């Protein structure tokens, strides 16, 4: 299993080399910014390609991802994956966890387990999957299942860059955990080429509120 960790970057590397060598012209970059209604950049927003231009075939990507459980927390808290990815939920705590999701996108349950006993879960449908632990109410993670492998996470300033896009007309969308704007309503058409325009998404964010279950002491934390 540990070999997989090294296998994934290696494959990515090989893929990059192949792309660079075989198609130097293919590699449009689309960048832009996600801002809130107050005009400030929104971090941790995910901008992704909703629909590919006709004829563009997405490159093969890793079919596996990991959402770890460390110190009774899902790590990472937000995991974007491409549809079809199987996600492993290893438990690196000394206690058991009971990972579940009731989301429409993917509903599953991994009854009490430790270490890497649990089978991976395949997320084959794009959408938001909220993951929790039955015995620790405060544990909350999100797996964002994306339709294509082209996506970017905004930095602190709300900046994002989608790289290596084969030229063409793309449909972009934006998602954020606190966004009050539905993903479908963020959809924008973008022509990706050498002079791709700057793309701007404006999201209205709900005020982050403490998770109800986080009130009070967090057990042994």
């Amino acid at each position: 299993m540990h070999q997989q960790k090294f296998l994934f970057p290696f494959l990515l590397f090989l893929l990059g080399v192949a792309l660079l060598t075989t198609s130097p012209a293919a590699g449009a970059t689309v960048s832009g910014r996600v801002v809130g209604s107050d005009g400030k950049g929104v971090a941790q927003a995910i901008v992704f390609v909703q629909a590919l231009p006709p004829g563009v075939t997405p490159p093969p990507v890793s079919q596996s991802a990991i959402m770890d459980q460390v110190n009774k927390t899902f790590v990472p808290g937000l995991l974007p994956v491409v549809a079809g990815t199987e996600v492993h939920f290893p438990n690196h705590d000394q206690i058991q966890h009971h990972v579940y999701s009731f989301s429409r996108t993917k509903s599953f349950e991994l009854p009490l387990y430790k270490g890497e006993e649990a089978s991976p879960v395949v997320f084959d449908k794009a959408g938001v999957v909220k993951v929790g632990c039955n015995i620790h109410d405060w544990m909350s993670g999100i797996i964002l299942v994306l339709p294509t492998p082209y996506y970017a996470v905004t930095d602190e300033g709300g900046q994002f860059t989608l790289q290596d896009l084969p030229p063409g007309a793309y449909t972009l969308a934006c998602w954020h955990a606190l966004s009050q704007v539905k993903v479908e309503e963020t959809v924008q058409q973008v022509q990706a080429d050498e002079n791709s325009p700057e793309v701007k998404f404006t999201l209205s964010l709900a005020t982050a509120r403490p998770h109800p279950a986080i009130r009070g002491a967090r057990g042994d934390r």
Partner: protein
Amino acid sequence: MSWWARSRLRSKIFCAFSALILVVSLAVLGFTQFIVSQQVQATLRQELLTTGQVFQGLLQEQAERLRTNAALLAGDFALKKVVAPASDYDPETLASAALNYQQRIGVDLLWMTDENGTLRADANAKKTSGTSVATLSPLAEALQSGEATTAITAIEGKLFQLVAVPVLGPDVIGFLVLGEEINDALAQQLEKDTGSRVTFLSHAQLFAASWGPLDRERLFPDGHIPAMLWDSQPNTTMLLHLASERFLSLLVPIAAHLPTPLFALVQRSYDTALAPFYDLRRRILGVGAGAILLALAVSIGLANGITTPIQGLVTSMHEILRGNFQQRLRVNRQDEIGFLADSFNEMAAGLEKGEQIKDTFGRFVSHDVAEAVLNGHIPLAGERREVTILFQDIRGFTSISEKLDPAELLRVLNQFFTEVVAAVEAEDGVVKQFTGDGAMVLFGAPVAHDDDPARAVRAALGIVHRLASLNARLRAQNGPLLRIGVGIHTGEVVAGRIGPDERVEYGVVGDPVNLASRIEGLTKEMQATLLVSQITAAKLGPGFTLGRSAALAVKGKEKPIEVVEVLAYEPVVEESHDESPSLIVSPSLTDH
């Protein structure tokens, strides 16, 4: 004159006493009623306010219980699976599951909604799934905050206390709404807990009440809420009537999500609370009536105690006025009444003795004589004693009386006798009787002096002297001039009370009396004014100037009587021979 002035003292005391007791009793009762009703009102009001607070507390407690139950239920993983958006339960199964949960925690209402507030299951199957209840409190607030919220609200005309809690999976995947109906049973439970009647109502509707159906119909006919309820401010008490019973009532505002404010009408029977006082009032009235009767009896006794002796005094006074001086009061007390009675008795005794003296001696008794008689120094039973008897007569009275009209005659006579009495009393003699134009005077009875003969002669000389002045006045008035003759004799007589009881008088009996009278008769023959017997003359002592003497035959006496004319008296002053002596000389004695 007013009734009060006319009425008797006893009636006055009686009335005043009764009125006072009545006023005091009523005042005490009125004051007690005022104080007690104030206190009862204050106590009831406090109890009602406490009840109001208890309600708030109980409702809050119920809300907390609901919230806890709901939170526990919402944390149940199995429930989460049921509620989860991905769950594939069909609506009937969901409703059945909801009913199961409802029965598990024993609440009146249990709803499951999705994360947007759309109903998925109603345990009571009253609302169809798919209905949005997102605007209903407290779900609306829970949707906003994502936290458990509670509220009192009306659902289809029924009052519910609801709690809405989010179901987390791990984010909000739905809501659980639990509710307890605020109904008659709850109101009755509250009444049991607090002792106050409870009604939950708004301006628009009566929701629940602890009243029985009959009372409820009386208070709220056809569920109609009387407008007067809203006249008072919340948290201030008012008195509401139900049939013949009064209820102290308080409107306690209850926070609720209703179109019009919700109140708990808390009521306690004012009359029941006052019942002990009413009982007390009955007792007070009973005791008061008894006290009034007792006080009346006492006042009658007291009034009698005061007025009976006074009445006796009044009666006795009437007797005294009628001349019955033997009248006495028998009052055995040491107070003012006793003093009054004693004073009256003393007064009556004084009057009686005075009358006795008057009866016995006539009006002309000197103070000393009266004193001696009253002190009992003079035995009135009869005794032999030596007295000097003076007879006086007006010369030629018959011719004078013929010349004068009767009124004038009496006026002159009275003027004369006034002088006679003055002269006699000056020497402590007693005018025993007036005999038309003359007088009989005693010296030595009833009070004896060492020098009674001298006193008698001085009195005679005094009469003669005073007559000179009187004649001077009579002359000025063109009246008749009076001349008199006086005879004096001294001898042993029997003195004492003479006559039947009703006409008893002090008198002397004996030959010397007759002799004195004879001597007076002799003055005509001797052309003398004042003749005394030799016996008297022998007892005169110094200072007297004697004139002629004679031995005259007297009727009924074998021996002639020796008489001496007295001309004047000059007191003997041994130390001062130089001073010219005052000489009592009868003018008439010097005339002839």
